[in-house]
């Protein structure tokens, strides 16, 4: 096989094949469930069958008598160690094992440690729990009713199910804009509860060594360093004695940001038995109990002039957070970044209010590639703009083009205070329309409508906000959202970059090697990327919210540039010239005016370790480290167009084409970027057409398997048609913005807008996701809104 560098069309940036794929395609990856330690035991969780019930008694005697069982852990045992409750990432607490009540179906009640997985599962069935059922609160719209059962009676003085009321924007200014507007359109819409459903479920191997006092935790985590700190805070173990290792991770999408009760149970199990304990949840446990996403009941209003100038936007949101407020998002933002909901448009005023409530459902709320709820925000504004276009009789793309921010308005401060860094929105929309053949599609649609055929063209335009974040404004549990990078350059000119972010499939080992290689004149083959082991990497908050390239990528650049400056000093000594006389061109330090006199990083690295007299400023090597605190978010954007064909007789939707033009700033590895977009678009098809974690009135979760929680297949996905524009971020050191969540954020609205557009001749103006055949048919019958409950007659 030829080296990677032979495939480089434009230096280190370019579609370099992914370094990590070699082990994955050979089946040689190492995931948590591949970790096998001597004497390792296996854990299993007993979960609540009820959504809301008081625990009367738990009898573990029969389970303890099972010949292969080593320990049975209950909430009462944990309470004795002050471990029955743990902090969530939103400053709430969550039960590790239930002591007083169970608050959602699937909640953790007891943990069995046995010598094998089968015995652990068998012993679960030997535990007898007596429950006293309580009335469940399942529909978020009834959670604040005066007679609703109080779910969180564990919280002192808590007398209702309200978590928070939060608002952003200028209420009075917005009211004034609405009062003066020619046209106001409003709509109720639900962004249903969905689940990230990574193919690798969550799991952990905990190994407490009582001799050294060290705890090692192998875990499927997107944030190993933050987890280490959390374990120290919760267990009281000293942080320097805790090592978290995240090996290969089979998808995260936000699902693997928090810590889960099973992780702590495995740690306690290892502490109790003195042996390693593995706990890997099964598919149903993952879908029923770990971080979900969305569950936003939204009411949107949009105000405009009759000729289509959008003036203002208002939103009122009821946010269902489940039984514990476990959303993983920056502390100061209880609704995440939802208030970026003015999207990509130049409007005068906006105001949103969000009320968070508890329900008897699994906790979470921020996951599934949502960019801290920008997914919800984009869905709202893009549906509202479509509704406005319909009201005004204007073309959906034309209305957007008329109202998009103009390039000269950047940096742009939106009505709720975000400062967008850069953008050329009309160029991206025009590119998407050209790729789609938009005008021809509209002509085709007209012809088909005359033949009684239902074809839809859906447009969405989104502005993302990623790379959280400036540590002054953004932290999680008090940990500022910065990330570190260590760069070591060995004497032969090979480099090892250690980063605090953690890949879950995004290709960090390749992209980050390309970043460093470009800065130092190396081949990506010469740069090894280390991540996922807290003993081997610098502190940082990890990978979620599309922050890897935006934050850790920037850290890598800064570390490499620091090393390059150190190299300059050494090179000056090597060539016996002043450092000021050197310039960095074509991958080497060269003497100005005499480019033949040059030193590559490899030559300089060897010299830095040699007997060469080193000048001040260099002690003896080129190694550097840095912490990158981003000055602002980066704001990727894009224009999406979806073409659907709808059969109104059955309600079936076929996605015929999907055109996606993304601008994520500078693309380091365009192939990886496109792969990220492909995955996100498939997610969007899934959310728009088939996915929901649904419940019945008793709180039974109806989405607990892949038979009922549906992932789209290649059959439902068209061959994606991708385009790109490049508007560099002015504050990122290489102008990159991040791409991880763009397609997930932008695509659901395009699909829904397309289906509604197809059904326009039937008078349908809105229908809630997922647009299953039944939902489409119901919308045609005049029932566009989805209940919180799955089953309605």
């Amino acid at each position, binding site marked *: 096989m030829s080296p990677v560098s032979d495939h480089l069309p434009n230096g280190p940036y370019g579609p370099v094949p992914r370094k990590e794929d070699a082990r994955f395609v050979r089946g040689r990856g190492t995931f948590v469930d591949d970790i096998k330690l001597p004497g390792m035991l296996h854990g299993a969780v007993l979960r609540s069958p009820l959504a809301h019930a008081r625990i009367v008694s738990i009898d573990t005697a029969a389970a303890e008598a099972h010949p292969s069982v080593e320990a049975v852990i209950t909430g009462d045992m944990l309470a004795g160690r002050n471990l029955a409750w743990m902090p969530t990432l939103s400053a709430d607490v969550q039960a590790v094992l239930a002591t007083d009540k169970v608050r959602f179906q699937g909640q953790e009640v007891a943990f069995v440690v046995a010598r094998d997985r089968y015995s652990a599962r068998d012993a679960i069935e030997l535990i007898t729990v007596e429950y006293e059922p309580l009335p469940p609160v399942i529909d978020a719209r009834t959670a604040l009713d005066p007679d609703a059962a109080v779910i969180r009676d564990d919280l002192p003085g808590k007398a209702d199910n309200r978590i928070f009321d939060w608002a952003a924007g200028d209420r009075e200014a917005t009211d004034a804009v609405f009062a003066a507007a020619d046209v106001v359109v409003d709509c109720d819409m639900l962004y249903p509860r969905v689940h990230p459903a990574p193919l690798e479920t969550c799991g952990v191997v905990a190994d407490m060594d009582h001799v050294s006092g060290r705890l090692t935790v192998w875990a499927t985590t997107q944030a190993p360093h933050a987890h280490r700190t959390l374990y120290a805070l919760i267990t009281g173990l000293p942080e320097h004695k805790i090592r978290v290792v995240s090996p290969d991770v089979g998808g995260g999408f936000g699902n693997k940001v928090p810590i889960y009760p099973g992780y702590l149970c495995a740690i306690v199990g290892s502490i109790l038995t003195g042996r390693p304990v593995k706990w890997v949840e*099964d598919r149903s446990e993952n879908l029923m109990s770990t971080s979900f996403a969305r569950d936003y009941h939204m009411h949107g209003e949009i105000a405009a002039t009759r000729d289509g100038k959008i003036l203002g936007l208002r939103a009122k949101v009821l946010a269902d957070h489940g039984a514990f407020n476990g959303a993983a998002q920056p502390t100061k933002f209880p609704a995440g970044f939802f208030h970026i909901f003015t999207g990509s448009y130049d409007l005068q005023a906006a105001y949103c209010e969000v009320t968070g409530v508890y329900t008897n459902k699994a906790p979470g709320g921020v996951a599934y590639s949502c960019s801290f709820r920008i997914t919800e925000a984009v869905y709202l504004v893009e549906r509202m703009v479509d509704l406005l276009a319909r009201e005004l009789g204007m073309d959906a793309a034309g209305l957007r083009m008329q109202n998009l921010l103009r390039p000269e308005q950047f940096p742009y401060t939106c009505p709720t205070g975000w400062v967008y860094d850069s953008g050329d929105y009309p160029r991206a929309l025009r590119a998407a329309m050209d790729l789609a053949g938009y005008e021809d599609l509209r002509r085709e649609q007209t012809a088909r409508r005359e033949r009684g055929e239902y074809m839809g063209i859906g447009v969405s335009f989104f502005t993302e906000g990623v790379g959280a974040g400036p540590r002054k404004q953004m932290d999680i549990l008090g940990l500022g959202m910065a990330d570190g990078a260590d760069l070591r350059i060995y004497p032969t000119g090979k480099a090892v970059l250690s980063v605090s972010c953690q890949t879950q499939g995004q290709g960090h080992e390749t992209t980050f090697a390309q970043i460093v290689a470009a800065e130092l004149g190396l081949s990506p083959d010469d740069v090894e990327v280390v991540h996922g082991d807290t003993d081997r990497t610098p502190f940082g908050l990890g990978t979620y919210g599309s922050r890897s390239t935006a934050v850790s990528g920037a850290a890598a650049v800064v570390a490499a540039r620091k090393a390059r400056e150190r190299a300059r000093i050494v090179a000056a000594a090597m060539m016996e010239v002043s450092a000021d006389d050197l310039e960095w061109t074509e991958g080497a330090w060269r003497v100005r005016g005499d480019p033949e006199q040059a030193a590559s990083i490899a030559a300089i690295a060897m010299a830095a370790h040699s007997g060469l007299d080193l000048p001040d400023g260099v002690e003896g090597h080129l190694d550097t480290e840095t912490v990158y605190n981003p000055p602002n978010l980066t704001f990727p954007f894009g224009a999406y167009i979806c073409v659907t064909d709808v059969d109104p007789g059955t309600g079936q939707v076929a996605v015929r084409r999907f055109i996606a033009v993304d601008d994520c700033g500078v693309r380091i590895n365009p192939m990886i970027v496109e792969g990220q977009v492909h995955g996100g678009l498939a997610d969007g098809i899934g959310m728009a057409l088939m996915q929901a974690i649904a419940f019945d009135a008793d709180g039974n979760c109806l989405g607990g398997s892949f038979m009922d929680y549906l992932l789209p297949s290649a059959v439902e996905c068209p061959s994606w048609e991708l385009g790109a524009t490049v508007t560099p971020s002015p504050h990122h050191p290489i102008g990159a913005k991040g791409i991880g969540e763009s397609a997930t954020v932008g695509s659901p609205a395009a699909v829904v807008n397309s289906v509604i557009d197809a059904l326009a001749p039937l008078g349908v103006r809105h229908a809630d996701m997922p647009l*299953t055949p039944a939902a489409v048919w119901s919308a045609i019958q005049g029932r566009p809104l989805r209940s919180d409950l799955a*089953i309605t007659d």
Partner: protein
Amino acid sequence: MQVPAYVEYEKATSVDHALTLLARFGPEARVLAGGHSLIPMMKLRLAQPETLIDINGLTGLSYIEVTDGELRIGAMTRHAQLLDSAVAGQRFAILHDAERVIADPVVRLWGTVGGSLCQADPSEDLSAAFAALKATMVIQNLTGTRTVHAREFHTGPYETVVAPGELLTEIRIAIVPGGGSAYQKVGRRVGDWPIGAAGAAIWLDNGSDSGTIADAGIGLTAVGAEHFSAAAAEDFLRGAPATQETFARAGQIAAEHCRPVSDQRGPADYKRHLAGELTARALGAALARATGAGPLPPVQRSPGQRSPGSPRPRRGGS
């Protein structure tokens, strides 16, 4: 990882051996055919048989042939084999229509026709297809064989007339000239169980040109249709002109007689609508095939689908 409870395992080497094992291990034994429903249910511990009797070695039950004016399908025939069978598809296109939308290529390579029928899921596709074709099931026990009409085979959700100690061995369909058949299914996603599906078979008077329906069979699944069929709609069709209006009315009758329940796939009224809509569409497609008016859709070989001689299941015993 989901793990099943403890279970004994026996591998049958002949039909008689299987029947002997079934007699020995009693009602808590379950037959393991393709296992694509039973094994997941065991992993979820929704099923906890004491003994599995594996009949995957009974290759003698894997065949598709025409004998005595009947199409005969061995119970251990894999879905992929039925989908690949020109002998079956030329006579009963409905079988290919249905097989093409059952699960995915991997499941079809190992799942069996007989296993699907005996699992008796109320959303099973083949149950509707065989009901439409008015098939006959052959059931064997240690004392001999008996035959049961497809419409008497199921006694309820997940229940059939196959008693402990018995084995379904064959499905027979009478080949009657002048017929055409088709299957229409709506699911939430490819490979999903149907939200609703309808199969139709139609036989015209005096061959294919009279335009009068001599007989018709309608199979419905996932919509609470009694015996997976729509007897009242069939009565209406018999002797009626083969027109879209007739089919639409037959669809209405079929819809009125089914009893769908609301679930996460959809509300009952939608499923009822679907029963009518798909019945009418299936009848139209069946007529087109009976008269040769419409092009028979060719059997598309999807990339994952292989010929029956070559399937190499990845997992043994499930």
